[in-house]
Structure formats: structure tokens, C-alpha cells
């Protein structure tokens, strides 16, 4: 699946499973999820700016983008143990609490990134070659983008203020203040500008997450869904049994079907989950935004130059791992 925003993949599945289980998760785990997915959005967009720079022959942008992404990935490694494919957000909460001193790590990220984005803004936006390759290239109208089921920066760049974080708030997005970035023309340049400004907005959200992070448990204390605390296993036979059952057999989800959707860096990431009462999903369908957004390529490319194709494909930001899933 989408290897540039792995935490979003975990989040959408966890939300679907929790909706079927009907469990509430503690506020701290909600805010940790928000913090981590917004950091993931920054890293994904920075990575996009890097590869987009590479596609448009701006090698320095590539190096800078990878440098900044590494800052965030090292925080992820500190928190989850892995740089990618974290298995951190799980049904019932998150796998572990944030590490000691996380505030300093996160604040140093959100204090560095906006300044760097200003530099990239100057490097690319003010550059005549970059502007001539992107402005007026690959235009899509809001009506066509909607009809083609395009979501995320493609839809917003065409002028439709549609962001699931604002339109259908999940987690605690209704409690944070941020702007939905929209474009006006719907060309490649607008899609670039939308993503760049979304990095700034995500930094704002991360700051608010640090300020408002509640204390408490980082996962629901539901014996059937989440493992018991490590200390309890030594003293309680029952806790040991629950721990063993969860890691060998998993948990049973009551029958039903649900569709959850979140705003991934690429658009609407949906999960349609059918449960039949057993410990495995009967059917899980992922609506990958890259898979759906790729349909917009023919109308975007029609009538353009071959050389523009590179800029346009890059501006759709497809992650092939999410296309074939």
C-alpha cells in the first residue's frame, strides 16, 4: 500500500475495525494518532516535492526533500521502532506511548520545516523555468475532477474546498485550527502550491497537537481488543491469558459492514470492511486514492506536449504501491 504514508493506512483500518467493534478510544490515543499522521503528511509532501523536483530536473530540491523527510522518519523510528511500515496505530489505540522528550523532537521538526519550505518556495516558485513548465499545464476543471472521483490536492487545486479533515471530521480535527488550501486554475502549478502550503498547515496542526496533548492512556483498556499492560502479566493469570489470546488468535469482530474514509496526503483513503463474527475480516477493500486519481491523467494530458507529461504525472503524485495494493 501507500509506503509514503504508512500511518494513514494503519489509521483507516483501525477506524473501520473500531467502528465495527463499537469501542471508544481514550483522548490521548486520538491526539497521538493526529500528531503522527500529520507528521506523516509533512514527510509525504516533502518527499513529493523532492521527487517532483527530480522530475523537473531540480536535483537540489531532491536532496533537500530527502534530508527533511529523514528528520521526521528518525522521529518515527524513535517512537515506533521502524522508519516505515510502523504497525503503530492499531485497533484500540496506538502500540506504544510517545517516547520521553517527544515534545522537543516534534517542536524542532515544526520549527525547522516552515523555514525550509520558505527556502524551497523561493527556489522553485521564483524560478522561471519551473514556472514555465508548470503554469497552465495539465488543467482540470472542478466539474471534471469531481466526475472523475479525483480527491486530495488534485480536487483542491481545481478550486473545490473538499478536505475530509474539515468536511467530515474524524479523530479530533474539529478541535484544531487549520486552513483548507485551494487553488484557482487547477494546473500543475496549483497542485504544487496546494501541497507546499499544506505542509505549512500540517505544521500548524502538529503545534496544536503538542499544546493540547491530553494525559492518560494511549490505548483502550479493553481486554478483548488490546493487550494488558506489561506489569499486569507478571501478577495476573487472567492478564496472561488475554495477552496470549490476543497475540495468537486476535479478537472477534461482530458481523457488519462499514466504510471509513480519511484524508491521506493523496486524497480520500477509504476502507470498506465486512466482518462475519470471526477473528479475520471477511472482506477488506481499500479505496486507494492513487488508483482512483490516475484516472484523471488522460483528461489532464490530452492536447499537451509530450514533455509536459512528466510534469503532469508527477503532479498527480501516484504511489504505485497503492495502485496495485
Amino acid at each position, binding site marked *: 500500500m501507500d509506503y509514503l504514508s504508512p500511518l494513514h493506512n494503519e489509521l483507516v483500518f483501525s477506524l473501520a475495525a473500531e467502528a465495527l467493534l463499537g469501542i471508544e478510544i481514550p483522548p490521548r490515543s486520538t491526539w497521538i494518532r493526529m500528531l503522527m499522521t500529520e507528521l506523516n503528511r509533512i514527510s509525504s509532501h516533502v518527499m513529493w516535492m523532492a521527487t517532483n523536483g527530480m522530475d523537473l530536473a531540480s536535483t537540489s530540491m531532491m536532496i533537500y526533500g530527502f534530508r527533511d523527510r529523514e528528520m521526521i522518519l528518525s522521529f518515527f523510528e524513535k517512537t515506533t521502532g521502524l522508519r516505515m511500515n510502523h504497525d503503530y496505530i492499531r485497533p484500540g489505540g496506538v502500540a506504544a506511548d510517545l517516547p520521553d522528550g517527544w515534545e522537543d523532537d516534534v517542536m524542532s521538526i515544526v520549527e525547522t520545516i516552515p523555514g525550509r519550505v520558505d527556502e524551497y518556495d523561493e527556489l522553485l516558485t521564483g524560478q522561471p523555468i519551473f514556472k514555465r513548465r508548470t503554469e497552465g499545464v495539465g488543467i482540470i476543471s472542478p466539474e471534471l475532477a469531481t*466526475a472523475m*472521483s479525483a480527491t486530495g490536492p488534485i480536487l483542491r487545486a481545481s478550486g473545490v474546498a473538499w478536505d475530509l479533515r474539515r468536511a467530515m471530521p474524524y479523530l479530533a480535527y474539529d478541535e484544531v485550527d487549520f486552513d483548507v488550501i485551494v487553488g484557482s486554475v487547477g494546473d500543475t502549478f496549483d497542485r504544487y502550491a496546494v501541497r507546499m502550503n499544506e505542509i505549512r498547515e500540517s505544521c500548524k496542526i502538529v503545534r496544536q497537537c503538542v499544546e493540547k496533548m491530553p494525559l492518560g492512556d494511549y490505548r483502550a483498556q479493553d481486554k478483548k481488543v488490546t493487550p494488558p499492560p506489561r506489569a499486569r502479566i507478571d501478577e495476573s493469570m487472567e492478564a496472561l491469558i488475554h495477552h496470549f489470546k490476543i497475540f495468537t488468535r486476535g479478537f472477534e469482530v461482530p458481523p457488519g459492514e462499514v466504510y471509513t474514509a480519511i484524508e491521506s496526503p493523496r486524497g480520500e483513503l477509504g476502507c470498506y470492511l465486512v466482518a462475519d463474527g470471526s477473528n479475520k475480516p471477511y472482506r477488506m477493500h481499500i*479505496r486507494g486514492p492513487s488508483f482512483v486519481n490516475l484516472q484523471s491523467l488522460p483528461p489532464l494530458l490530452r492536447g499537451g506536449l509530450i514533455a509536459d507529461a512528466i510534469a503532469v504525472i508527477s503532479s498527480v503524485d501516484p504511489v504505485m504501491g497503492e495502485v496495485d495494493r
Partner: protein
Amino acid sequence: MTAAATSAAELAGLPESPTVGAGGQEVIHVTRERYLEVTGALRDAGFEMCADLCAVDYLRHPDRPLPEAVTPERFEIVVNLLSLERRQRVRLRVQVPASDPVVPTLFNLYPGTENMEREAFDLFGVCFEGHPDHTRILMPDDWEGHPLRKDYSVGRVPVQFKQAPGPR
């Protein structure tokens, strides 16, 4: 995502009565004959985006709980429609029999369903009548069978590559 004040079925003036699924989501069960008509009515009522379309193979659950008027069949096509203006979702479930797995395409109403319908055909073998490019999308063109069907045995077919020499 709670149920909106006015249900999508009311907005579109449909005779089908919606049910409420997990998380307060509105679900409309629609027959194959009424599928196009209902989807068109919903689009005219403001559901301008088809967010998702997928198939489900209920081979092992022929007696799953469904509203009384619905006859369970092996396949289901599940369509998630979205209204940007009303910030509302609605889900359609269509029963498709295994003996005749054909439904009309939504391509003329929602061009964005092109890839999704090809995926459902590729992995489940449900055909979409009138689709402009009714071919496989994920599996190789000469692949046999539909891998996400519940009776498709895993490991039955050796890995195939396009233009690779056949088994010796």
C-alpha cells in the same frame, strides 16, 4: 460520520427504504433492475461523486442478515456515493447472482468508476454491461480466474508473466 437529517433516499425520492449500518451510515439495498435508475436519481439529488465501488463474494455466507425484501445472492456490488455540498455519504448494495454476474456500468453517470469497475471485474469476475474498456486492470491479460473469489484456491496457478515461455 453520523446520519444526516435528511436521508439520501428521501432526497432522491426513492421508494427503497434505507437501513442504518455501523457508525450511523445510510445503506440502500437496491435490485439489479433498479440499480441505474436509483443511482441516477441520487446523482441528480446532489450526490455528485462516486467515491468507491467494489464487489464482495458472499460464497460462505448465503444466510447473512439482510432486510426482508432482499434476496441474498452470491455477489454484492457496493457503491459509495458522496455529496460534497451536503457532506453526506450513502452506500448502495446490489445483489448479483453467480449464474449471471452482470450489472450495468455506472460509467455514463460517473466516469470515475472506470478503474473501479475494471478492478471488480478483474478480481471477482462481475461484468459491467456497457463499460468502454472491459478488460483486466491488475492481473495479466491472459490470467485465468478471478483471484478474490472465495472458491479461487491459493497457489493453484504458478506465477505467470506476460510473454514468458510456457511450462516445459
